[in-house]
């Protein structure tokens, strides 16, 4: 087992990794930018190394600085968290080349999964249903138009190199295609350093359902069920829940089998998530895979009673998963609200000094946060302030607990999305489970 893990991340996820390491008796190294000198992850790690000035490119994306920090502290593994370098084949390779274990899939798998167009092809071969789309990113406008004619409208343009809504354009008519393709390319090049765009049939108002997978070096590939993440604004998730109200037990078993089969086929290792769209007819289509830990992993942990980060560490250390598929059961219902430092209705970012900070606890509530009173939310990174997770015997109880917690939460000094979440949790469509990714557009129009 590792003696010392360096956490190549910040904020709540860095703390999350520290939780697991402390419980396992593993020493931790925090790396931080000059803007995070007083951050909690720095305070609670056993050692800390300043790796650069505030901008991510100079610090949390700075591969040599991070690997050098592992060298000088003698860390034997690096946990990349989510975002930043967690899906970087280059980071994984450089880490391993320096004799440090990368806690995640091998570089070749990261590259395969990270190329969205290639991943689609592989998953199709593995028997997963996929949306009709281009096999290769078309390289000229003429080829783009040809592919669009074949697919029909509406269609969606997407970046092969990354997600999060960047490099994405919905095209509903032929006239929009050229402009959409040009701007999508520019956006993708700026965001990911790669402007390749592929085309896919666009499903109007699908539900977003994703499966959590874990695979070790001993041939165990397990799925931990699904999460529904349909409440999104501009492809950024706001509320996630586990299980999905629309998935039957049979569908879960079938998709779970397909997903573990696909993971095995591509030689997947460690934690990963397979995302699907479900259309109005109840058909599922593979969208993309994320070869890392996800923000919303806690809801799966609450419902299955597992610790995904500990399993990640165990897998990387060459140990077997703590469980087999038959050991996994789902108990109750969990909901997560992502509390961001943004105005709840205009979404204007609100970095700054938090004056008062109290998230109420109580039965069934889990809080993952690196914020506290007197903390300054820096403007350089994402705006996530806290994840609040509510678990209950039923969906009703989980939602009731979440409403109670949010209504008794006090965060002053910055704007947060708490009022928005409270409003969503009272919406009749949300409560009845009849919603899709079109929910937020309709909700905001009111």
């Amino acid at each position, binding site marked *: 087992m590792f003696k010392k893990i360096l956490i190549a991340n910040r904020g709540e996820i860095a703390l999350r990794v520290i939780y697991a390491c402390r419980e396992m008796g593993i020493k931790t190294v925090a790396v931080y930018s*000059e803007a995070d000198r007083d951050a909690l992850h720095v305070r609670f790690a056993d*050692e800390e*190394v*300043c*790796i*650069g*000035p505030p901008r991510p490119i100079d*610090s949390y994306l700075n591969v*040599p*600085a991070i*690997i*050098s*920090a592992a*060298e*000088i*502290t003698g860390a034997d593994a690096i946990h990349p968290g989510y975002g930043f370098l967690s899906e970087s084949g280059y980071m994984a390779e*450089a880490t391993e080349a*320096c004799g440090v274990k990368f806690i995640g899939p091998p570089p070749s798998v990261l590259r395969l999964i990270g190329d969205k167009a290639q991943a689609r092809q592989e998953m199709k071969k593995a028997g997963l249903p996929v949306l009709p789309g281009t096999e290769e990113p078309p390289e000229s406008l003429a080829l783009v138009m040809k592919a669009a004619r074949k697919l029909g409208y509406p269609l969606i343009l997407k970046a092969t190199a990354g997600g999060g809504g960047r490099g994405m354009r919905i095209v509903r008519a032929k006239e929009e295609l050229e402009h959409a393709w040009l701007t999508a390319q520019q956006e993708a090049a700026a965001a990911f350093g790669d402007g390749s765009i592929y085309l896919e049939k666009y499903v109007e108002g699908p539900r977003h359902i994703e499966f959590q997978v874990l695979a070790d070096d001993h041939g165990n590939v397990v799925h931990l069920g699904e999460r529904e993440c349909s409440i999104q604004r501009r492809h950024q998730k706001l509320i996630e829940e586990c299980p999905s109200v629309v998935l039957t037990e049979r569908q879960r078993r079938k998709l779970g089998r397909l997903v573990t089969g696909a993971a095995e086929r591509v030689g997947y290792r460690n934690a990963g998530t397979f995302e699907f769209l479900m259309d109005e007819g109840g058909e599922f289509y593979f969208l993309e895979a994320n070869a890392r830990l996800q923000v919303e992993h806690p809801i799966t942990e609450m419902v299955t009673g597992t610790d995904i980060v500990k399993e990640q560490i165990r897998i990387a250390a060459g140990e077997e998963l703590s469980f087999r598929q038959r050991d996994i059961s789902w108990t109750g219902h969990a909901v997560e609200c992502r509390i961001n430092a943004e105005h709840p209705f205009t979404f204007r970012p609100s970095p700054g000094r938090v004056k008062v900070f109290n998230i109420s606890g109580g039965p069934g509530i889990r809080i993952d946060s690196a914020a506290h009173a007197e903390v300054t939310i820096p403007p350089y990174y994402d705006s996530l302030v806290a994840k609040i997770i509510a678990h209950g015997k039923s969906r009703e109880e989980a939602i009731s607990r979440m409403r109670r917690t949010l209504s008794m939460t006090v965060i002053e000094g910055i704007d947060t999305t708490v009022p928005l979440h409270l409003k969503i949790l009272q919406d009749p469509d949300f409560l009845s489970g009849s919603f899709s990714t079109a929910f937020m557009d309709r909700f905001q129009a009111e």
Partner: protein
Amino acid sequence: MAEDLRKIEELIDLMDARGVEELEVELKGSRVRLRKSRHGGPVPSSIPSPLENQEPENRQTDEQGSPEEDDEGLAFIKSPIVGTFYSAPEPGADPFVKAGTRVKKGQVLCIIEAMKLMNEIDSDQDGEIVEVLVENDQAIQYGEALFSIKPL
């Protein structure tokens, strides 16, 4: 002298007990600054001689406050990278510079090793090295002060 040492030991104990990272006091005309090292207990960083014996040119020992507040014209060379500090071109060789060495802008002051690459760190100004602030083979963070330098 023994009495001074005992007082310093008491200060170190006090720092440990109260979790204090850095402490500066004036004792009978002497100024002492104690700073906790990353890997263990507090490390005395400078113990100046009593003021009445002060040489007028020997300014390094009566600088006070944190580097940023220094108004005596002392500058600091900080590390631009994370790595391991080496004071000499190779083991056993003479160090590149030491206290009192006059350096020109662009002159190599030390090596910082990162990911098996030896990076030469150059001076960004002409000046005289006042103090070498780190030790050979020490782990260095981004922004860590390596040398204090008096611009010329």
